[in-house]
């Protein structure tokens, strides 16, 4: 079977057709209907588009393409310009039982935007308008397809900022910030994307366009907006959101420190957080990452656990907060490396993601990030590190981690495994990749951690959701069935099937 046959077979299955010659006929019929809605220029069945939209930022599909293999491709790439158009697209999807995969920036690392079952890939980037910037309430309302950095630049022109600074800001969309419950570099002070959203407009799988209440902190019934935060397009398509913004800070203070012992450093972070010192960022690298990545990107050759701490806002207040944090660090034996390396880290914080400094092929890698309470986080780190490093001696796995998103009660750990010489055979590579993931995530779940803090579930972690949620999982499935009875929305993701 050649690739075209495969594509057609997928579509025939989706459309319930079995007769020879039907696929092209069906394709053209559906295409015509889609073109009626969004215009001829905004529906593509071109091979180039199908290829490019077959892969997001998940290592597995990238590896699969890297080895010359083909991914499942969408049957149609559709660019709607409004929620009304999305609603109409959903009508077609319901009529013909066609899967729909919302697509923002395609920058998710979990395979959340992969069109596993073909169907309609709905790229929302045409919906990129800023609706309103309210400089009194400090909110911005924008369409979900707006690019994160472009939104930030627009806010900066008014002295404002959306304090969600993910490494993917250059490529992700506003909807993509929210759908997987993303975190940014300064989430420790300002919260995750989900903490910044006031309300959202969503197109439901049945085509209905709904808006959540104006503000989230109310007592007028359940906060159902949260259903869509983390749903990753499985319960609907986010089309617009109102976000809380802030003034650009008067000052940003950064400082680097070095701890001999990682546990002391975690304890230092815990005391800063539980003491409500309100740092903008605490970035704590384990000794391995300090020795490798920090050295490579920042040029600092150090042994121990490298920490960057930042405070922002009013200069006097930030200075005082920093002083109080430094007292804690001194007590725990930290070496103060001064402002310069901290400022350098801030300037270069995204350099890690540019080629050739990023993780890259032929390496195999995965970010097994997690979040847990302070009582569990050290145990998770040590157990995950041991399990991954010792479980696959033949593959010489390197394990690195940093703690980057801190809460009053715990911290997110951004751990990664790297195999520099993985199997050449793509199928073998998938199996090894998934085995290492099983090991890493099992260590998390056995120690009361969450399987993910901010990248989302997507396809990558879907198989762990039943275990993560236990008895609560059927409840989530019931919600999914009620909202999307035909299972059209982003099938195969977040643990929901087709």
């Amino acid at each position: 079977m050649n690739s075209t046959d495969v594509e057609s077979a997928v579509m025939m299955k989706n459309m319930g057709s079995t007769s020879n010659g039907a696929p092209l006929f069906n394709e053209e019929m559906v295409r015509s209907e889609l073109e009626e809605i969004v215009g001829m220029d905004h529906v593509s069945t071109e091979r180039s588009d199908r290829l490019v939209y077959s892969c997001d930022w998940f290592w597995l599909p990238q590896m699969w393409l890297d080895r010359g293999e083909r991914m499942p491709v969408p049957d149609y790439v559709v660019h709607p310009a409004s929620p009304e158009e999305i609603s109409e697209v959903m009508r077609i999807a319901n009529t013909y039982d066609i899967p729909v995969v919302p697509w923002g920036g395609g920058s998710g690392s979990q395979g959340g935007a992969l069109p596993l079952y073909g169907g309609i890939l709905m790229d929302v980037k045409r919906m990129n308008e800023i609706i309103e910037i309210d400089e009194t309430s400090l909110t911005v309302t924008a369409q979900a397809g707006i690019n994160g950095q472009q939104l930030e630049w627009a806010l900066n022109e008014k002295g404002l900022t959306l304090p969600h600074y993910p490494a993917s800001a250059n490529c992700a969309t506003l909807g993509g910030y929210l759908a997987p419950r993303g975190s940014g570099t300064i989430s420790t002070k300002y919260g995750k994307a989900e903490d910044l959203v006031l309300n959202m407009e969503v197109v439901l799988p049945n085509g209905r366009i709904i808006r959540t209440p104006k503000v989230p902190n109310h007592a007028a019934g359940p906060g159902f907006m949260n259903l869509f935060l983390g749903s990753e397009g499985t319960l609907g398509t986010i089309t617009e959101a109102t976000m809380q913004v802030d003034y650009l800070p008067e000052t940003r203070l950064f400082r680097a420190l070095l701890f001999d012992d990682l546990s002391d450093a975690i304890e230092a972070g815990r005391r800063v957080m539980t003491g409500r010192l309100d740092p903008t960022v605490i970035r704590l690298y384990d000794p391995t990452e300090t020795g490798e990545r920090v050295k490579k990107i920042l040029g600092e050759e150090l042994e121990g656990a490298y920490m960057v701490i930042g405070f922002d806002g009013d200069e006097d207040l930030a200075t005082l907060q920093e002083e109080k944090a430094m007292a804690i660090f001194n007590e725990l034996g930290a070496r103060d490396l001064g402002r310069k390396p901290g400022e350098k880290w801030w300037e270069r914080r995204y350099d890690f993601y540019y080629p050739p400094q990023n993780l890259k092929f032929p390496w195999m890698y995965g970010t097994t990030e997690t979040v847990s309470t302070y009582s569990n986080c050290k145990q998770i780190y040590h157990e995950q590190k041991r399990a991954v490093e010792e479980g696959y001696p033949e593959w010489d796995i390197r394990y690195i981690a940093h703690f980057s998103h801190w809460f009053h009660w715990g911290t997110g750990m951004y751990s990664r495994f790297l195999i520099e010489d993985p199997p050449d055979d793509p199928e073998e590579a998938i199996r090894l990749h998934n085995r290492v993931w099983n090991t890493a995530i099992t260590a998390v779940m056995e120690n009361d951690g969450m399987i993910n803090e901010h990248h989302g579930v997507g396809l990558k972690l879907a198989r762990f959701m039943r275990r993560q949620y236990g008895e609560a999982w059927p409840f989530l499935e019931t919600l999914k069935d009620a909202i999307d009875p035909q299972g059209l929305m982003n099938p195969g993701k977040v643990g929901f099937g087709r």
Partner: protein
Amino acid sequence: MIENVIDTTEYCRHCLMCRHVAPVGHVTHRETLTPHGVAQLVASERRGMIEWTEDTVQALYAFSDNGDSRAHCVTSQPLGEAIAAARSEVVAQDKAPPVVYELHDKLQRWENPHEAAEPEPPTGEGDVALFVGDDATHLRPSTLEAALALLQAVDIDPVLIGRGRSNGFLASSLGLPSTAEALVRATLQELAESGASTLLVLAPGDYFAFGQMSDERLGIPWPDDVELLEVTQLLAQKMEEGAIGFSQDASGGPHAYLDPTHAVRVPSHYDPARQLAGAVYPDTDRVELFWRNGRAHPSGNLAVQFTSPDVADQLTKARLKDAQSVGAKRVLTADPGSLHHLAHHASSFDVTVEGLFETLAARRS
């Protein structure tokens, strides 16, 4: 010359870090037409996963090659150069869009894509030369006339070279490196014969073509003993020295300087051009476009004007829409090619497009 430049696509195919400044992606919203999408196509073709067909080649030729991706890449990956190299392979396989071969013929015969006319010979010898190019000759002669008037006002009477000749960028971008090389060498020959120690250029595109592209893409180094300078830089310097002045016009309402095509490749363009604009129109009436300076997006005067005219039009309209959205009533820019495209659509946006040199020449005091 950058060795194995096409390998850059291996880095860029899965990197999304310049998406926010990708001009074509921004107007088409197609992932395929963003830098990583085009790189993915090249990388996939090299793996035998796709072939160069009408569809895939069209996508390959929709890449703007304006320099935005490289300007915003922390490690300066030369993706534009890689795409040009990939296009040259497509040309060699006879799979490029037909218009590319038509342009090739024109560039070989007439040394420009606009008119069936050979370049005029240089005007003589002297210490300062001015590269005229094809756009100022065939599309916007008023820009050249104004620039010459301004130069004469500061006692510079340049030797005109490259009169009607492309600077080589178009050929390079289309994947015609040998033709690009011939064009650049012809200009350098004229430059050498002129005896000039300074070459002035009208626009960032020319500056890039001679100052960077020729070396990186064609292996032709810029002569060490010749200074390359934009007319805007020179005039701003002369204005600061008091050698030239302008009368202000406060009647026109908000104005904006539009960083023209290729400006992101020439950061030295931004400030002098604005200083000059500010000499004519009050700074209090100045507004800035969203897509400016280091994130400046191009107008349609790139290879896409021929290979994807719809994309070129969208780029040009996006510049005018940007001006409209910030309340600009007048848009100034120096580049004759950008001006040609902008002027074509200006009336639809209620914006007046003015050549910077034309405006300055009219207000010389």
